Structure formats: C-alpha cells, structure tokens
C-alpha cells in the first residue's frame, strides 16, 4: 500500500495544479466583489469550447488556443457581470450568488444550443505515459502542470508588480480606504471579472485537454474548485493554490483507504475541517 503513495502524490499534484487556475479566478472575484460567483462553472466551459474552436477549426496549437480560451471566457465574464450580476449586487451577496447560479445555467444552455450535448475532443496527438520504475507521468499532464505554474506565476507577478494589481489588492483588503485613495472600484471590478473568468476559461480548457469536453465540463469541476478556494481561504489567492493542492492530493491519497466512489467526500471533509478549525481558511482571507 505504501508503494502506491508516490504515484498518488504525483496524480494529486497534477490534479491540484489544474484546479488551482480556476480556483484563483473564483477567489480573486470573491476578494474584490465579495460574493462567490458560481457562474465560474459555465465560464470554464466557455473557455474550453473557445479553445476547442481555436484548436480544431482555426488550427491553433495548445498555447495560442489557451489565450483564446482566456480572452473569450474573460470577455463573456466581463459582459455578464456588467449586465447581469452588477444589478444584483445592491441586493446583497446571497442574491448575487443565487443570480450567478441562474447565470451559469443560462450560459451553459447557450453552449448547448451552439455545440450540442455531445462530447468533443481536442485535435491533439495521444501520447503514452513516461515510466520511471513503478511511476508513470503523462506528457500532457506535465504540459498542463507547466502551463498552470506559468499562469500562476503571471497572476502573482501581476498582483505584485503592476499598478492595477496593487490597486486590486487594495480594494480587496479595504474597499473604503481604496476609495479614499482614489482607486476606481468599478474599473477594478471589471478587471477582476475579466481576469477571473479568463482564468476559469483556461482551467476549463486544461481539464478538457486531459479529457473531452461537453456543456457540463465546468459544472463537473465546480465542486472541487469551490472546495479548493474555501479550504485555502476564500479571498486569498495563494490560499487558492494551497487549497487546490490540498484537495487534489487529499482526494488521491484517500484512495489508500476509501473506495474511489467516495473521492468527493474528501473535498467536503476538507471544507468541514477547515471551517471548524480555521474558519478563515488555511491562509486566511487576505488577498495576497
């Protein structure tokens, strides 16, 4: 049984790294706009399909297709927030969160209307896994891991070194103070909606690269993404990464003593444990 641990750890890190990208989007939106935007699920799907069109129709390779996924999902996120969710915000965060559930169902059905219900696959060569003794690692997974790491590095650099990134952190930490300092909260909200949903789109495509995509692609991943963000500390961007790795590795290691049919219970258990022991999440709720 112990010999299985290294392989499970590798699988968990790979799965966690992919989860981390949309989890950063979810937590960044929460940090600035102060509501859990469940429409992230459909934006992940939209990104997956945008990347699919770029890859299969326009012949783009993975990285340019990921840019398309980011841009299209980000743009839809910006517009849907501006025209659908923004009017909800004055009614409180619960109303806005419920509005985002309605939005995600509507967008999911738009995707269904355009692309149908069937599965679609990216036009990528299938490669056998590399083997190192008893361990196996997939080339596609390594590529996905590398892309996730680069995306995370770009997000952190953006937050640390750019004026807009610093303004975002300021709004997330103390909206009133940021307002006094003359930071335009509405502009920051638009940027975070665009970037957050763009990241969801990238996450959706990364999931799709490893599997196939259909209109429920984002919805299937949503529970794990939400668990990752809550466990890490909803609103904390490094927390989203830590949470995603915790959930990813936790789910895999649970297979040592649980049937695979109970894998999702780990996500819920992690949320329960963290909320009991550390209600603000592993890294608290500071954005950065």
């Amino acid at each position, binding site marked *: 049984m112990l010999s299985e641990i290294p392989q499970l750890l590798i699988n968990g890190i790979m799965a966690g790294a992919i989860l981390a990208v949309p989890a950063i989007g979810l937590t960044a939106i929460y940090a600035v706009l102060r509501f859990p935007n469940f429409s992230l699920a459909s934006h992940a799907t939209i990104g997956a399909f945008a990347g699919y069109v770029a890859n299969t129709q326009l012949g783009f390779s993975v990285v340019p297709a990921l840019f398309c996924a980011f841009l299209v999902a980000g743009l839809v996120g910006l517009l849907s927030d501006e025209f659908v969710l923004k009017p909800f915000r004055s009614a409180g965060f619960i109303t806005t969160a419920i509005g985002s559930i309605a939005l995600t169902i509507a967008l999911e059905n738009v995707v269904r209307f355009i692309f149908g219900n069937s599965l679609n696959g990216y036009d990528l060569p299938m490669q056998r896994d590399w083997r190192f003794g008893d361990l196996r690692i997939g080339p596609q997974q390594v590529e996905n891991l590398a892309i996730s790491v680069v995306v995370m590095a770009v997000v952190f650099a953006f937050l640390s070194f750019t004026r807009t990134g610093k303004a975002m952190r300021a709004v997330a930490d103390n909206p009133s103070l940021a307002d006094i300092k003359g930071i335009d909260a509405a502009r920051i909200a638009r940027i975070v909606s665009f970037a957050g949903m763009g990241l969801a789109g990238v996450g959706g495509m990364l999931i799709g690269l490893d599997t196939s995509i259909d209109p429920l692609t984002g919805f299937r991943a949503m529970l794990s993404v939400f668990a990752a963000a809550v466990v890490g500390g909803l609103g904390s961007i490094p927390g989203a990464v830590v949470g995603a790795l915790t959930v990813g590795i936790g789910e895999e290691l649970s297979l040592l003593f649980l049937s*695979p049919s109970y894998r*999702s219970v780990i996500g819920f258990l992690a949320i329960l444990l963290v909320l009991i022991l550390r209600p603000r999440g592993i890294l608290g709720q500071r954005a950065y």
Partner: protein
Amino acid sequence: MTGSTPLLPRRTALLAGMTALAAPAVSRAQGTSAGAPLRLGILTPLTGAGGFDGPRMLKAMQAVGEEINAAGGLLGRRIEFAVEDDQTNPEGAVRAARKLIDVDKVPVIMGTWASAVTAAVAPVCWESKTFLTTVSGADSITQLPHQGYLIRTQPNNHLQAGKHAEFIAGTGAKKVFVMSLQSPFAMPTQNRVREVLAQKGAQMTGALLYEKDKTSYRSEVDQALRTRPDLIYLNGYTPDVTILLRELYRAGFEGPRFAQSYSVTDKALESLPREVTEKVYTVQPSSDVDSPAFEAAKKRLGTGVDSYEAQATDWISLVALTIAKGREATGTALRENVRKIAQGEGTKVYTAVEGLRLLGEGKEINYEGASGPCDFTEIGDIVDCKFRYQIVENGAFRFLKVA
C-alpha cells in the same frame, strides 16, 4: 304552501342532474358491449428524455392496431387507443395513468420507458387491476409487489450482465477487471459478471466503483492495472467512459475493453483518437433480427426497426392475443392468460393477425416476437433476449454478431 311550490322543480332538477351524471356511465357500459370499439391505453414518453423513443413506440403500436382492425378487429370489435404522454416524468405519468384508468377505463397501459416512471405508475396499475407493459430495465421494477399485473420486454440487469460475461469469456479473456460508475446497476452487474465468468473458466480479478463527474481517473486505472487483467469492462456512461479509455491508453493498456453501446457512441468515437478506441467491444440488447416477426414489423413500419419499436410491436400483439385467448378485456384476464399465448407448446406465431386467426380456429399458440421469444418468468421478466455485439476498428464500428 308558498314554500312547497319550488319543490317539484328542484326534484326535477335533481333527477335531471342525476340522469346527466349517469349518462356517461350508461354510455360507457354500452361502449363495452359487442360492436363498440375496444379501448386500450398507451402511455409513452412523447416529451422529455424519452421523447425520441416514445413517439416511435406509439406508431409501432398503432400500426399493429390498424392491421388487427383491417383483419376484422378483436372479439369482433375495433381496437381504439387512448394515448397519453408520460413526459418522462413520474408525477406527470401518474396523472396520465389515472386518467387512462379512471376516465378511459382501459384494461392495459402499454409503454412506460424510464424506470422512475414505471416505478411510479406500477402501483397505480396493480391497485386498479390494470395490466402494464414496459421497457424499463432496472431489476427493481419486476421485484415490486405487482401481483402479476406487469411484464417487461427489456432484459433486466441480471440477464444483461450474464450475457456480457458469456461474451467476454468467449473472447478468450481469462482475467477481467470491472470498472463501474456508482449507480444502481453497478453492484448487481459486478456480482453477476463474477458468477458467470467463474462458470466459464475465467475470473474477475477485481472490480471498483468510481464516482461520476471527476475530471481524472488515473488512480482508478492504476488500481485496475495492478491486477494485470486481459480485458477491462467499463460499465459507465459516455463522459466517464471516454476519460477511462484515454487513461487506459496512456497507461499502456493494450488489451480489449468492453462497454455498453450507449457509452461508446458514434459521437464518442469522433471525439477520441483512433488508437484510444481500437479493440473496444460494445454490446446492446437487440431485436431478434432474423425472426419473421421482425421482418413483419419492418414491412409494417416501412423503416428500420429498433429495439424499442420491436418491443412496442410485441406489447400490442401480446395484449390482443391474450384478450382473444381469454375472451375478456380486463387487466385480471390479461394477467391470467398472457403466458398461455406467449410461451408453451402451441403453434409458433409471429404476428397478432396470424395468432388471432389460429385462436379463432381453436388452436393453441406461442407468440414469438420481434424483440425476442417473449417468454416471461413469474415476476414478468423475459427469459431470454438477443444482444448485438460490435468491435471498434480504425475509429469505426464493425458488426460482430447478434446472439
């Protein structure tokens, strides 16, 4: 005295009202007399998830009804159908069934499709002694206390899993691993496959249940491959089975895989690289395509006949023949007599009209249907059924056999 004046008109009104209320009952009673149409109930999904199969099942039954009417009807009466939409929804289906039973007074309801719908409609039927024919496959359906008022022409899970294991053993696989999506059919399938493989000299080296809606099943695949199987049975739906097929390819598994045809579809083949789906066997319940009954159904409908149309053809044929045999159109008579014409030593017949003619001559018959032999166990399951097997080669299905 002033107060008594309106009494008579009130009595008259009461009498008139009672007469009006009684009129439909009188006409219904008259409607069941010789010469009046014989009304049978159809409850198929015309909308909802079953909206693809329901209308075609309805047409198949109507076509047989027309054929019987053209040949002189049933017990000297024309067959007439009372049709309702079950909406693939238990709540809507129960309302529709109540209407068929209480208003249309049908002795039989033919056509429920989804297991959840059948589970909801069945109690309404057996409580009102109405016969029910269904296509729902869950084992639990025929285990309901239906007192014999239910038959189904779809193979149940037990029968399907047994046939799957026989085919798998026939491929020469000695060590088989079963990966099942967590669902009501998962454990019964695993148990039956284990049992039949052991009888056939093969072995189920292991099995696992996996969760739906996961984005990766790498660790599950590792678990399966540790038992070094010759063949892996993937018992799930398209979204998870396609992920498993990819993972098995990446992990270097070269052996054949076996799956239900509803999980490895044409669209699934399009979405997966060819090398991933190579040597995947698929299976589905099949009509008895070589039988004269199937040929007759094809001619009657003027198109290809699928398993659901074939089963619908058999329901109305069985019901008509049973009513003719018992000379009584009630649910209880259907319950008592259906096996007298569906199985046994009588002359084999392949259409309702042919059977009605022989029954009219006082002969015993055994109806052999378009979907299969239509022999029923005590609880209403079919005893046997054919299955269609295919294999994927170069990204396309190649027909293997119907057996």
